[in-house]
């Protein structure tokens, strides 16, 4: 690497660490964040779902962190998909990192995955979702109603029908379960 290349990469790293080159999209509902994440990741943008900074927290929130310099292009991608962020702002604080720790419990005939406060249990032989537990946001009973009794492949994913952080946590458990159960 040339000297200038070294300086450039050092500068880029520092800038990224302090968040100066990152912005966040704030949305009305968590379900819009989930949709936007899906659209932007499919389009190849390097974005992350994170917790909002304290000054804009209201309760059950997520934001999307994106490279600020690409704001216009990314907003355009969202508009085409019919998604409008409520607010766009630069990152000025350290953002909270969503949970990335999974606990796995093997019951023999059944397997349970826990992500944050959400637990998903399937019957190993049939891959049928037999229980969903934990959580405190109002979409949890709804998600359980729609998913329990169906197989992992036939059940709607929390990403499709969930709206809250608990729904998002269940999505993580659901993805981890699919990874565990894939041949």
């Amino acid at each position, binding site marked *: 690497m040339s000297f200038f290349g070294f300086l450039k990469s050092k500068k880029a790293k520092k800038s990224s660490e302090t968040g100066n080159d990152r912005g966040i999209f704030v949305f009305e509902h968590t379900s819009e964040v989930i949709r936007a994440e899906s659209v932007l990741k499919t389009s190849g943008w390097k974005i992350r779902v994170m917790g909002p900074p304290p000054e804009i927290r209201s*309760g*059950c929130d997520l934001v999307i962190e994106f490279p600020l310099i690409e704001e216009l292009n990314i907003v355009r991608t969202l508009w085409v998909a019919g998604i409008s962020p409520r607010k766009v702002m630069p990152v000025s604080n350290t953002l*909270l990192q*969503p*949970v990335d720790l999974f606990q796995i419990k093997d019951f023999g005939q059944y397997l349970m995955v826990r992500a944050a406060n959400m637990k998903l249990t399937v019957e190993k032989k049939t891959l049928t979702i*037999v229980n969903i537990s934990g959580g405190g946001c*109002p*979409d949890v009973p709804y998600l359980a109603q729609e998913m329990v009794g169906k197989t992992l492949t036939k059940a709607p994913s929390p990403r499709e029908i969930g709206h809250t952080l608990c729904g998002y946590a269940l999505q993580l458990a659901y993805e981890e379960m699919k990874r565990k159960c894939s041949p």
Partner: protein
Amino acid sequence: MLAIVGTIPDQNFPLTTGKVTLKDNKICIRGKHIHVNRGTPALLAAAVKTAEALGQSEPFGYLIGDIGLGEGSRKLYEYLTGNLGQSDFSVLTFHYLQPDVDWHNRVLFAIEEMTKQPVLIADAGFMYAAKMSGQSAVYDLFTPDIGELAFLADEAAPHPFYTRGFILQDENPASDLIARAYKYKNAAQYLLVKGKEDCVANRQNILATINTPIDDAMEAIGGTGDTLTGIVTALIGSGMEIGDAAIAAAKINRLAGHYARPTPATQVIEIIHQIPGALQEILL
């Protein structure tokens, strides 16, 4: 009388208030029948069963449909701010509501207007909002599971989804998490922690650890935490002291689960049916 505030997983369920009964595995309120699966209907069903076994009157419900968009919760919050002040409930339990700090605080102001302050219990989404508001100590009882206890212990987390890994990891004993939750003023006067071992604590002590009978499958069954909150609500409503009620509720809930011979596929209504028998054995 005790009142329970929560949501129904049906977007079209209107704001409904009234006494709640249980019939044919459904809770009934003002002629409406709701299937008991988990969430607030499971809490209400457990409270109804417990109150019935104790010879107490039916709980009062404040219910509305919400599937996570928060619209129902906000309507209910608004209704509560205008109506709770004139009510005279001895116990108020808040459950699956969209966490919203601003509305949470307005509801607390309405409660302050009540002539006699009720015992305040929070679980699920409302407990998240209570912690985030910094007013946990106003509450008499929180009923977190072990994951939610880690969230209460993490002074920086606004929701369990953001609980930091070093706090969330399995090796942390409940007693450490309880101490940390109290240290940062993120716990109610009493904590009833649901888990492999149930734990009842206050700021000073762990009052009891309840670990029998052990049925590992209970952890996987959706609604077993809701039934525990329903049982403790009804026990406190009958006049029991909060710590005693929490210990008895943990024993009753575990025993009811055990009587249902649970597997990870068991549904919570099967456990609710076992509450009267378990209550008889623990209390009478």
